[in-house]
């Protein structure tokens, strides 16, 4: 019998998240894919899940999951797991996915794996490929002991595989225990974002500490526009409050795999490399010839970003006019 592979489906910005669809594609490849979707969502949520690999969806649209976050979701999933015994449950490395997986792993005393880049399942056992220490190692790891194998997957690890299918839906009751409502969401604030989203961009122009301040990000914005891309940043630039957290690329930010990544004034700390090493082509500009970013760059220019980037911008404009 095929292994039962569950996916924790998430709604982000009113839609089934891209990461959820990535997980479903892999789940369908590994065994019988089923999704658990909790909280209010779009009308076509179940259809979207089934078209991406789910053969069954456990569904509750109760607002308790949206308004009280982790605890109700953990309660419901623990109950479902006890009844159906999935071999594996996949979670995205999102804020919500990480919270639910961590709490479940303690509640079920089963542990969990994080940052997983690939996964194999055989006879109920799993082997996960995990890039360790910012991707300088690539280890294989397993989880032993009873209970489901909870696996947090890196963004972009798997491809979305749309297909035609229909899923059965099982409505699940939401827990009523008030103790599960101890976490209260009082307000949700969406920061205005302009231009293409980082995760979906084919081209990313990214800036780090070498930009020396927030003003110079305007230069990157101009370059990004010329290349039809988006602007990203390192943790150093975000911690310095030069740009918002939403732009952060790296282990503690977004993982991106664009066709072209232009790293400007970025040294290439492990934490940053982890989020962008998968880019198809990498161009780096940095004053320090020994900067680790040059180890991964297809073209490295040792030089001053404030001279090289403006020249590149002029050059691209000239060629566009020609």
């Amino acid at each position, binding site marked *: 019998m095929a292994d039962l592979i569950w996916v924790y489906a998430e709604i*982000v910005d009113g839609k089934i998240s891209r990461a959820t669809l990535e997980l479903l594609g892999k789940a369908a490849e590994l065994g019988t894919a089923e999704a658990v979707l909790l909280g209010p969502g779009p009308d076509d949520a179940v259809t979207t899940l089934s078209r991406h690999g789910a053969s069954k969806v456990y569904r509750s649209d109760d607002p308790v999951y949206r308004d009280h*976050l*982790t605890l109700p979701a*953990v309660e419901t999933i623990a109950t479902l797991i006890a009844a159906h015994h999935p071999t594996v449950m996949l979670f995205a490395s*999102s*804020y919500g996915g*990480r919270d639910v*997986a*961590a*709490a479940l*792993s*303690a509640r079920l*005393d089963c*542990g*969990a794996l994080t*940052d997983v880049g690939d996964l194999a399942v055989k006879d109920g056992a799993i082997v996960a490929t995990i*890039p*360790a*220490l910012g991707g*300088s*190692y*690539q*280890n*294989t*790891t*397993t*989880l*032993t002991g009873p209970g489901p194998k909870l696996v947090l997957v890196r963004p972009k690890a798997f491809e979305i595989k749309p297909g035609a299918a229909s899923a059965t839906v099982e409505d699940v009751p939401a827990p009523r225990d008030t103790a599960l409502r*101890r*976490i*209260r969401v*009082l*307000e949700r*604030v*969406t*920061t205005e974002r302009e231009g293409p989203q980082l995760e979906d961009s084919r081209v990313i122009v990214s800036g780090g500490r070498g930009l020396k301040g927030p003003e110079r990000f305007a230069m990157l914005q101009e370059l990004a526009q010329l290349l039809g891309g988006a602007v990203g940043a390192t943790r150093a630039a*975000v*911690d310095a409050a030069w740009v918002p*957290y939403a732009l952060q690329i790296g*282990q*503690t930010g977004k993982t991106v795999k664009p066709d*072209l990544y232009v790293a400007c004034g970025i040294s290439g700390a492990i*934490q940053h490399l982890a989020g962008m090493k998968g880019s198809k*082509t990498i161009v780096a500009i940095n004053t320090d010839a020994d900067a680790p970013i*040059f180890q991964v760059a*297809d*073209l*490295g*220019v*040792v*030089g*001053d970003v404030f*001279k*090289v980037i*403006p*020249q*590149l911008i*002029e*050059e*691209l404009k000239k060629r566009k006019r020609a």
Partner: protein
Amino acid sequence: MNIVVCAKIVPVSSVTIQIDPGTRRMIRKDVSQELDPQAAKAVEEALRLAERHGGSVTVVVMGGEDATVGIRSALAMGASAAIHLSDPALAGSDALGTSKALAAAIRRAPFDLVLCATESSDSYAGLVPGQLAQLLGIPPLTFATALTVDGNTVTIKRQSEGGYDTVSAELPALVTVTTGINEPRYPTLKGIMGAKKKEIRKYTAADLGLGPGDVGASGAREHVLTVGRPPARPPGKTIRDEGDGGKQIADFLAGLKLV
């Protein structure tokens, strides 16, 4: 308010961490250790809360003898006391084993708030805080970019995919802080001198009532099977800007049909 900070002691950031292919663990021997810079943010946040509302800050660390330097840093910043879980029986614990040990230690004294970094800066797994909250039976408020306590209520700005959420809970609760939340203070000379006199309470696994089925390599669910290196990228070209660096990049991109 009794605040507990869970801190990890990690290899100093200037060191490239290696994995021993034999034991399949990080090599910590002969590598200088420090208070994890991410945990320092949790310590800082705890100290600010204690300064504003009164109370104590206790740092809890699990690690070998070489963790003492990092523990002293947290005490030098201003933490009132430290608990050090140090025992060969704890070595090789996975995240859940670590969480069980931390929970057992934290339960031994009254607490109102537990603070953790979102994740450590050496392994980045980020599982321990969520597991710990579950084991302690307290609500986890995670990914805080700002934190306030008003009476018995803790409220955070929680990082979200599209912005932030304002989220609150009654104490006792656990909060994880992101790296942007504050800039940790440097210990003063007085702080460093004072830290030497502060108590570091030590516990073994047995003290905490934990056996080989709970902690250490024997209690671990997570097992590294193989240690390897990822496939290398084909080597690129590095040039020095001689005044035409921008043009060279444009040519390179044109060659790949990227412009």
